């Protein structure tokens, strides 16, 4: 047995030296981990690739098996643990802060000062792109969650008008039901239900309440009667979904509205991409309204490029990537395609459609009035453990495991406490 173990050790050493890493860093190359591989997103990202190519930087995608954000984040975790840092990675909210806390993020403060990012990028977003006074990430876009997407033909048929309050919305849904159309296109997956609940909470309690409860995690607000009322409102609105909503993907729910099978979907502005891809025009074929009672406020989430602490010889490529990402031309070109709005408030809105223009104006005013708040469902309100605990509670309430709004509030407080 002992000789066997000795041989094992020798072989291990031999194998180890054979596989020792042997790669030289390429200075003129951007190594990028992202999951924008499909149609419009890939096309939008191509703009960035070409911008960088003009400056002489090659683009190299870091391959992710399986695609999708979860697989990419697992791959990133493994790369960082192995000390093999990409130049940058697509990242969401708290992930940036987690990695910054672990001390692996780079520092872009010099270029940020030079380009005046502090003023151009909304303050609320800087919570995630600036860590301990250093710029560690650049936002690519701002999505907002509190939108209604309505099929105009159906709306005209039932003679509806833009709902101004939550009760208006319920009345509108009731009209659609009476006309034999599915009122609410809902995808019964936890994140979609929670995304809709984000809007309901803001509509019920206002943006200050939302901020206190879902960004500051204030106990009193979470426990309050307003939160209970929000759950009651959720129960009211879910009744207008069809019987088959559970487990449906968001884009299928959007397709129901596009085809006129359903009146309205409550979803973030990525839904617009589906309408545009189906050759539908805003105001002519579909309507984009803010969720009633949330006009002037924006519940946002944002895609970021996290910048890692790469060796000095790869730094120039990283700085070029960051600058190109936040350039006005790229921000406009990318977001027109993606359906979101630019992550800086000084980009001209000429290239955008009506919904995009409204989104940009709302972002600007919400930023100035302090009504720009992070979406808890989308991971911009609190850390992932808390955000997922929240999604659990909302989903269990929608599907009936949690039976009353009293119980839901109790569960929400406990789940958030647990995850803290």
């Amino acid at each position, binding site marked *: *047995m002992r*000789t066997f173990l000795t*041989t*094992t050790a020798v072989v*291990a050493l031999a194998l180890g030296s054979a596989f020792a890493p042997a790669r030289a860093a390429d200075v003129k190359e951007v190594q990028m981990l992202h999951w924008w591989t499909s149609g419009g997103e890939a096309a939008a990202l191509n703009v960035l690739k070409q911008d960088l190519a003009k400056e002489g930087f090659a683009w190299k995608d870091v391959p992710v098996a399986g695609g999708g954000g979860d697989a990419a984040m697992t791959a990133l975790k493994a790369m960082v643990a192995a000390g093999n840092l990409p130049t940058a990675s697509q990242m969401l909210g708290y*992930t940036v802060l987690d990695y910054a806390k672990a001390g692996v993020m780079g520092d872009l403060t010099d270029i940020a000062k030079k380009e005046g990012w502090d003023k151009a990028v909304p303050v609320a977003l800087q919570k995630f792109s600036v860590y301990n006074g250093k710029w560690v990430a650049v936002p690519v876009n701002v999505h907002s969650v509190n939108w209604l997407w309505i099929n105009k033909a159906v709306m005209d048929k039932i003679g509806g008008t833009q709902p101004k309050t939550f009760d208006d919305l319920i009345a509108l849904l009731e009209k659609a039901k009476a006309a034999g159309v599915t009122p609410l296109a809902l995808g019964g997956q936890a994140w979609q239900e929670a995304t809709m609940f984000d809007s309901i909470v803001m509509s019920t309690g206002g943006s200050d309440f939302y901020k206190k409860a879902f960004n500051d995690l204030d106990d009193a607000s979470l426990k309050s009667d307003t939160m209970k009322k929000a759950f009651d409102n959720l129960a009211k609105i879910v009744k207008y979904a069809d019987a088959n909503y559970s*487990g449906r993907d968001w884009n299928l729910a959007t397709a129901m509205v596009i085809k006129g099978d359903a009146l309205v979907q409550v979803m973030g502005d990525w839904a617009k991409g589906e309408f545009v891809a189906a050759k539908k025009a805003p105001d002519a074929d579909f309507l984009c309204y803010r969720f009633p009672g949330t006009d002037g406020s924006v519940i946002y989430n944002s895609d970021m490029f996290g910048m890692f602490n790469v060796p000095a010889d790869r730094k120039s490529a990283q700085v070029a990537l960051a600058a190109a990402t936040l350039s006005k031309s790229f921000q406009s070109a990318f977001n027109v395609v993606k359906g979101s709005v630019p992550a800086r408030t000084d980009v001209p809105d000429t290239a955008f459609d009506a919904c995009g223009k409204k989104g940009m104006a709302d972002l600007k005013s919400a930023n100035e009035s302090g009504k720009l708040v992070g979406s808890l469902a989308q991971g911009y309100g609190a850390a992932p453990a808390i955000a997922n605990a929240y999604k659990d509670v909302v989903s269990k309430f*929608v*599907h009936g495991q949690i039976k009353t709004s009293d119980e839901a509030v109790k569960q929400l407080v406990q789940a958030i406490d647990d995850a803290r």
Partner: protein
Amino acid sequence: MNTIATTDPLKTRSRQRSTLRGKLQDALPQIVLAPSFLLTIVFVYGFIVWTGYLSLTNSKTFPSYAITGTRAYERLWRWTLESDPPSSWYTSITNMGIFGSLYIGICLALGLLLAILLDQKIRGEGVLRPIFLYPMALSFIVTGVAWKWFLDPGLGLEQTLHHMGWTSFHFDWIKNKDFVIYTVVIAGVWQASGFVMAMFLAGLRGIDGEIMKAAQIDGASSFQLYRRIIIPLLRPIFLSAFIVLAHMAIKSYDLVVALTSGGPGGSAWLPSNFMYEYTFKRNEMAVGSASAIIMLMTISAIIVPYLYSELKEKAR
């Protein structure tokens, strides 16, 4: 290792050679075995110990190395007792009980029945056998997606029957929080029962025809024949099939994801889904590790007694 080596006559002969080549030849089996031995030590047992260690820390997104006690286990234990409204962990383990017992039970029963029917010297057995066995060749993802469409009330079975005129037909288990786990059982059984059938068929073919003849001469009906003689003789097959099915049940993850994406309100979760969710999506690595350790202990509780009895029988 050495005890086997010294009884090997080839080995004893080669030991007398002291040339370099001879020594190398001596060591060859060890050199060839060493990499896989090493890989197993590190990547199986090493990581089991590593996971156990992590479950005692307060690791979140990244591993942290300071031991902070059994808080992760305490949380799991509290969640175990939280049944109304059900915690995710409670749902996971009760689903494991439902899925595990039904999946194993139905697969065994159905597999045995199919094997007995196929064993009646029927025509076309060569065609039927691969048809039943074929689902095993599909991955869980394919099985899951296919059944997801088939069971979806808006797409599959229910819709088709409605079109054919049977409008009162109603089957929405896959959308129902209380029944979604049974759809996982259906898909799982569809996939694995053919494989169990093949195992039983091999066992049936291995039974000595003389025993059956003797029983028939003694006047046993064919029911008695199966009940008293053949099924008891198949005991080792039952055991092997049970072990194969049990570990497949415990590690089912992809089937739940592909078929139900977790089910309404997470009602189709199994412990493996729980583990993945908490470790990678919720950045609660300690809780995820603790649940992995509990799963490992569950598997050991089944496998260890089996290995023990098997090895004991061999030693005798």
